[in-house]
């Protein structure tokens, strides 16, 4: 197992988890600010406990499955997950759909009657994605580096949250999702190929080639979207396309 592969796993898990932690922390911050930190932290703690139990239950079971089958299943799931992110990030970058607005989430949460369950749900749902990312990116005996990447991301986001205690609207979420979508898609294709017995040129280094290839494809896709999307005035009365 090369350091390049371990490093790529850490970076992939770090970036992918960072997005989820940012989303969860935004809601926990809103709950804590409006309803008090006690209920927010109890809810978040309960979510973390639930996820820990889930990870301990699922992780060892995954390691007993034959590697090829595991790579196939995880690869396909990772593709579905990563391509979904990448597609959305491309459509956002191309101006087809609105950018995800963390500030809007914060305003909504502060206006609502928020309970401990809100914090629990946010941490559980976003955390489930982190668990999946860790299991997926660390499935080839690299759970520890993947968990390290996720833990670093979580620590970074918690520290940032403690430091600023403000909505995380300034985090360029779409750029993050763009990169994460590329990484997850590249890993997904690599694992599906491995699981089906395709010999990758350069073995694990092929992942870097796939990352470069999907980055170029995604940038091309943004240009295609900008060209294909109808102009903003197209739906207005009295105007012609």
């Amino acid at each position: 197992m090369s350091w390049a592969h371990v490093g790529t796993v850490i970076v992939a898990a770090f970036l992918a988890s960072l997005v989820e932690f940012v989303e969860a922390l935004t809601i926990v911050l809103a709950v804590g600010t409006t309803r008090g930190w006690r209920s927010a932290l109890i809810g978040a703690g309960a979510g973390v406990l639930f996820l820990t139990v889930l990870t301990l239950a699922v992780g060892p079971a995954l390691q007993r499955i034959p590697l090829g089958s595991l790579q196939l299943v995880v690869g396909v799931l990772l593709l579905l997950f990563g391509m979904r992110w990448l597609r959305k990030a491309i459509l956002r970058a191309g101006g087809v759909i609105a950018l995800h607005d963390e500030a809007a989430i914060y305003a909504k949460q502060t206006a609502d009657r928020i309970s401990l369950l809100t914090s629990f749900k946010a941490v559980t749902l976003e955390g489930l994605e982190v668990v999946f990312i860790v299991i997926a990116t660390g499935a080839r005996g690299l759970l520890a580096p993947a968990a390290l990447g996720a833990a670093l991301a979580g620590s970074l986001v918690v520290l940032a949250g403690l430091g600023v205690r403000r909505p995380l609207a300034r985090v360029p979420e779409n750029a993050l999702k763009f990169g994460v979508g590329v990484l997850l898609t590249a890993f997904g294709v690599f694992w599906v190929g491995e699981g089906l017995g395709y010999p990758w040129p350069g073995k694990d280094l092929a992942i870097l080639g796939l990352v470069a290839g999907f980055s170029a494809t995604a940038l091309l896709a943004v240009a295609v979207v900008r060209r294909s999307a109808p102009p903003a005035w197209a739906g207005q009365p009295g105007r012609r396309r």
Partner: protein
Amino acid sequence: MGRSAREAAVTALVTALGSLWGLFVEDASLTLGILVWFAIAAFALPALGLRDARGGAVLFLLLALVLLENVRRSAERQ
């Protein structure tokens, strides 16, 4: 377990399954494209004798085409 408790449990289960489904499936045509891509990778390419070093490049190119076509169609639908 009372009826309301059962209903709450079913609702919670449906919500959880919906959330899980939403993690992977957002655009049905993209999901279908990925599954067709997988079928080609699993059956068609090996049948054509392409399960070799060229196969990886074909896998990438096919999936890149799926992505490009999907976002182009999505942009036109908006």
